[in-house]
């Protein structure tokens, strides 16, 4: 569909405000102003989307915005300062889940797409789904719902096999597009389980780095789905966050003096019973 110029213009402005906002957050003096600027960008982008002619389900849309937004707003206001990291994790997971859900609808519609579009939709769905369940585990650990690090025997081998299965199913979806519902379902199931299994063995102390990694993942997923939707604002916001998040993850891992691979794939040496 071709969009009216005021919608495209508003999205463009929104993407600009995101970049200025993030730039502002890079120094303590302007940090607070930065998030406010980015906030205006978000409001602008959402408001403009309502003005697209021919969109259906507007009432449902408004309801979903109010429900999701209000729940998160209130919980974010109430949470204790020390519990912030897990809130970042859970909000991030929701973004990943949203990106995966966008891809799911895209697959369900089964519109004819180019191979590149389908590949990016699949990749975005995969990392979005992993980020969704992974972030939920990260939240559960930091919140104290999950107390122990659960490590399977041959954990790394299980991770690799699951990842390969997910990639294989994804490849099948590209090859057989439009994919059958069973295949779509299997793909998402494996991707969601992968996020769980990868994150479960990681200890609470390493979680901030892992949350940052999932944050970068969600960014990439959003960027890829943005391409599928033909929406440059999503691409820009998603990829900027993906790149920034990747670098941030490395910096955080470095600050902890542990390489990222070590955090993800090596168990902490058994520290005895108790916390």
């Amino acid at each position, binding site marked *: 569909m071709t969009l009216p110029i005021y919608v495209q213009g508003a999205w463009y402005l929104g993407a600009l405000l995101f970049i200025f906002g993030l730039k502002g957050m890079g120094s303590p003096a302007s940090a607070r102003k930065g998030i406010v600027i980015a906030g205006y960008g*978000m409001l602008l982008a959402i408001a403009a989307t309502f003005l697209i002619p021919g969109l259906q389900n507007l009432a449902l849309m408004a309801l*979903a915005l109010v429900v999701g937004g209000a729940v998160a707003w209130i919980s974010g206001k109430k949470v204790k300062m020390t519990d912030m990291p897990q809130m*970042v994790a859970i909000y991030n997971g929701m973004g990943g889940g*949203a990106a995966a859900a966008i891809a799911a609808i895209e697959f369900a519609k089964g519109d004819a797409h180019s191979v590149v579009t389908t590949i990016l939709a699949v990749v975005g769905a995969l990392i979005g789904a992993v980020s969704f369940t992974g972030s939920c585990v990260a939240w559960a650990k930091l919140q104290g719902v999950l107390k122990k690090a659960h490590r399977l025997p041959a954990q790394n081998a299980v991770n690799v096999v699951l990842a390969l299965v997910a990639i294989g199913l994804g490849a099948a979806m590209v090859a057989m597009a439009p994919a059958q519902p069973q295949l779509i379902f299997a793909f998402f199931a494996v991707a969601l389980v992968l996020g769980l299994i990868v994150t479960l063995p990681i200890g609470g102390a390493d979680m901030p780095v892992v949350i940052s990694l999932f944050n970068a993942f969600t960014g990439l997923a959003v960027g890829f789905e943005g391409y599928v939707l033909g929406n440059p604002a999503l691409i820009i916001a998603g990829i900027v966050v993906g790149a920034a998040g990747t670098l941030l993850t490395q*910096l955080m891992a470095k600050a902890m003096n542990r390489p990222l691979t070590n955090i993800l794939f090596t168990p902490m040496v058994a520290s005895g019973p108790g916390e």
Partner: protein
Amino acid sequence: MMDGLLALYIFTLAAFTGYEIIAKVPVILHTPLMSGSNFVHGVVVVGAMLMLGTADTVVQQAIGFFAVALGAANAAGGYVVTERMLAMFKKKEA
């Protein structure tokens, strides 16, 4: 739909932008920036709205509703949490 190569330009430039934004940031701002970038990818809600707005079947509507709610939560929650973190950086009486 977008020209494939044009999209590649956008991808590349956006990646450089993201890198440059973070490259010289002091360590104390790492966590707020993670939270801030978490807010920014909440723009996924726009994509979710587009999908819900073109959903044809009940299943698609349900997934679309779910997607918009999750995206809205990402944006709203990300904003509140980041704002609260950064409020601590407000100029203190020195």
